[in-house]
């Protein structure tokens, strides 16, 4: 057993010795590197190292949690935490944490990301790719982020294990004019698959096509969503599938289990698989991660659970435990059976939306929302990009959007950027009919 895992287990033992019912400890030694750039130059290179143990403790259905840094003052902190549990209030709904011992998949983290110190070349590669597409005058900005985490988990209820998680992400936005831009991302769990030029190329291409945008028109349009845009929506639906969101009505899926919530073509799953930037082998309770289909051919099949919410909903955990609430890891949308080009060919007159931000709801329970497309907004006629537009807003309903989907491409992209496409997702190009667009007056 590693020294760190032994120390993590010692925290659990300390909690039990104090009289706790359950104790869960997860130590993460994280190494994070980020390079930020704008105006085609690097602004700052950043490193942050974390040495943190998350601890959750229960006593008579009172859940309290803390963090211990670098195993400093462990005994004192655990004593204070147990005292806090004793004066806390009972949560009658609390249903425990995962029990038993489990076999986990072997972690596949890329050790090269642990050693990555100067990733500037990847930034320059992406900038050059954007310039090739949009010309040397293109103005780019973005971030390159790499992480490597060693994770050690111990639980009084049985689970114990080690994980290693790695990711590298490049996000680049290219401006060919002040109001003409494109955005590309490249997200991988290992350096092996990481091709930063792809993100630069895509950002540059969209920026070139977006030049001289015209004021967009209001109305209902058939819309092709780029994976970057739709990844943002997949993240929204994934978060709404969390049982926690359902319990507090931050979801359109309340009381809809077993019901049709989307077009027949739509199958969504949560899967923190090996390729994903949120790859992992167990959740925060030490339950093995699994693939969960939560919308199957349009029908809502399950919510995403930890052990406690699963008990409330009389089902089993889906391996989505965060420390307090279930969270989605990586939302996948099943691909279609036609190419991207064929999907565009299905649009006689419509829009191609390449990215969005600032998605906000009037009402999470009904699903009324708006979001602001950014970067290239294109009018499509007879399957071809006809014109660049600007200043439009998608103002519709999240359930209605799911039901209006009529096609997906074979091609899919793994996307994640900032908080706008969070959690990460794997999305095809998606065609939806009669989507409401509005503009300022």
């Amino acid at each position, binding site marked *: 057993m590693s020294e760190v895992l032994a120390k993590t287990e010692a925290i659990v033992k300390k909690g039990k010795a104090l009289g706790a019912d359950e104790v869960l400890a997860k130590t993460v030694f994280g190494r994070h590197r980020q390079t930020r750039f704008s105006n085609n130059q690097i602004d700052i290179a950043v490193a942050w190292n974390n040495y943190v143990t998350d601890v959750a403790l229960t006593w008579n259905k009172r859940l309290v949690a803390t963090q211990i840094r*670098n195993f400093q003052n462990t005994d004192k902190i655990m004593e204070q935490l147990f005292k806090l549990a004793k004066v806390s209030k009972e949560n009658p709904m609390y249903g425990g944490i995962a029990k038993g011992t489990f076999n986990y998949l072997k972690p596949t983290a890329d050790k090269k990301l642990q050693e990555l110190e100067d990733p500037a070349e990847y930034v320059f590669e992406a900038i050059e790719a954007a310039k090739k597409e949009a010309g040397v005058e293109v103005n780019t*900005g973005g971030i390159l982020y790499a992480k490597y985490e060693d994770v050690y988990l111990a639980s009084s209820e049985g689970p114990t294990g080690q994980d290693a998680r790695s990711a590298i992400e490049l996000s680049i936005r290219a401006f060919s004019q002040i109001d003409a831009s494109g955005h590309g991302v490249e997200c991988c769990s290992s350096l092996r698959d990481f091709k930063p030029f792809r993100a630069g190329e895509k950002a540059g291409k969209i920026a070139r096509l977006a030049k001289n945008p015209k004021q967009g028109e209001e109305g209902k349009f058939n819309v092709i969503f780029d994976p970057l845009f739709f990844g943002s929506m997949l993240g929204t639906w994934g978060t709404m599938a969390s049982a926690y969101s359902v*319990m507090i009505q931050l979801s359109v899926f309340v009381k809809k289990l077993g019901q049709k919530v989307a077009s027949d073509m739509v199958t969504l799953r949560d899967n923190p698989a090996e390729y994903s930037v949120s790859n992992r082998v167990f959740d925060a309770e030490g339950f093995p991660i699994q693939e969960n289909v939560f919308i199957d051919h349009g029908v809502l099949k399950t919510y995403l659970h930890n052990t406690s919410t699963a008990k409330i909903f009389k089902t089993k955990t889906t391996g989505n435990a965060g420390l307090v609430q279930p969270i989605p890891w990586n939302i996948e949308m099943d691909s279609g059976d036609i190419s991207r080009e064929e999907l565009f060919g299905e649009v006689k007159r419509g829009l191609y939306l390449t990215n969005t931000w600032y998605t906000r709801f009037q009402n999470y329970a009904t699903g009324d929302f708006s979001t602001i497309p950014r970067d290239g907004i294109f009018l499509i006629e007879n399957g071809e990009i006809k014109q660049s537009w600007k200043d439009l807003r998608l103002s519709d309903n999240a359930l209605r959007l799911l039901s209006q989907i009529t096609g997906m491409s074979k091609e899919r992209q793994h996307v994640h950027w900032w908080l706008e496409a969070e959690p990460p997702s794997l999305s095809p190009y998606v065609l939806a009919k009669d989507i409401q667009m509005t503009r300022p007056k």
Partner: protein
Amino acid sequence: MLQKVKTLDKDLVDYALDYARSKKVEYAETRAHSTQHDELVIKNGVLDAFVSTIDTGFCVRILANGGLGFASTNKWTKEEAKTVVDTAYKFTTIARRKDKITFAEEKGVETKWSVEQKKKIEDIPPEKKIEELMEVDKTFASQEIKIPGRIMACTINLTEKYFVNSEGSAISSFVPNIETFAFITVAENGKPEQAYKQFGRSGGWEAFDEWKMTEAMLHEAKVLQKLVKEGKVVKPGKMDLVCGTEVTGIASHESCGHPIEADRILGREMSQAGRSFIYPGGPFWIGTRIGNDIVTIVDDPTVKNSHGYYEYDDEGIKARRRYLYKNGIINEFLQNRETAAKLDTRSNGSSRANSYAREAIVRMANTFLLPGDWTEEEVIEDVKHGIYMKSFTEWNIDDRRFNQRYVGREAYLIENGELKHPVARPIIETTTKNWWSSVDAISKEVGFDAATCGKGDPMQGIPVYAGGPVIRLKEVYVK
């Protein structure tokens, strides 16, 4: 609240700075934060979890070789301090910039500052915190209103900071801050409506006396109930729109505070939070008209006990009120030392970081429209046909901060100067210039709402106030 075993180790922070200065640096700083943090979550009437942590760490930022390097850690050893400094210094060479980064000149400052507490948070036992919060929840949920879902989260941060730099600054500070977020769903005949409310201030536990959360949440629940029962949609068209202080505040924040951030103007946030309709060589710059001449919007970190209060920013610059739009004219950008150097000016103390593990960047503090000389009644009584949008639900704005939309939460029809029935989700979708150019009446009383402003990558949520008086927009399109 967990008690600190030992206080922030200033000697180690000084050691890290001295070690950084031993290298060929143009500038170096070390910033340490130690935060005692409590978070209580009450979900549907039960305490879901009580999280209590202490997070203590420090960062080093170095300007050398024309580039900036930053590194942080939460491991408090000399060996780690050296590693962090070495990393930050090495990272200054990564940029290989053509134009070198410089900082606007400043003199070193040695000072201490803190926010006083009338009721010290450290003296409030955890059971008292739980009890007060649960009492709020219980009282507003026990009325004759069907509330199928609700959540309330209270976050308490006691943050001690120590900042030193190579120019001789040494600044110690202590800020206690409390924030509570509540989200409720009210249903009538199966139709749900939702509202959220955020309360926040710096200071002590007296915040709970001042907020009157029970009354505020009960008001929200009643508004939603009435909206479901009596709300009517508005007939779209041009009309006068009276905006409550919450709506004035969000518009001030989104369409004045954000576009006036100099890093955004210079493109440094272009791939995340975006750019601005103000940019070098563009149609809008300092001196350009953006609104009616009665519009003056300021950002002021020095509002006592505000959510965004500070006396010195995270680059050690003294805070002051900034006049962003003055008499309808773009007047002053929010600057840190890096942007100020690029724009040949001085920092106005707008650099903030939410953690030792994050670079300080240009941020707002408390952004609000200055008051006029109308009473709220006078603002309304002149309206023949219009809407009073007292608060908002959905909102968003494009990443140039020009095309924005606000949807009313509590809103009423105005006819011949009188408030009539509730209006269901009226929408204004307009431009920044049109919004501020349409203001023709401003009330005397300024109201503030707490908010958490998002910016930076990784995201740095930072406490702010957004506020202003009641205002009237003349003849705008509402749907």
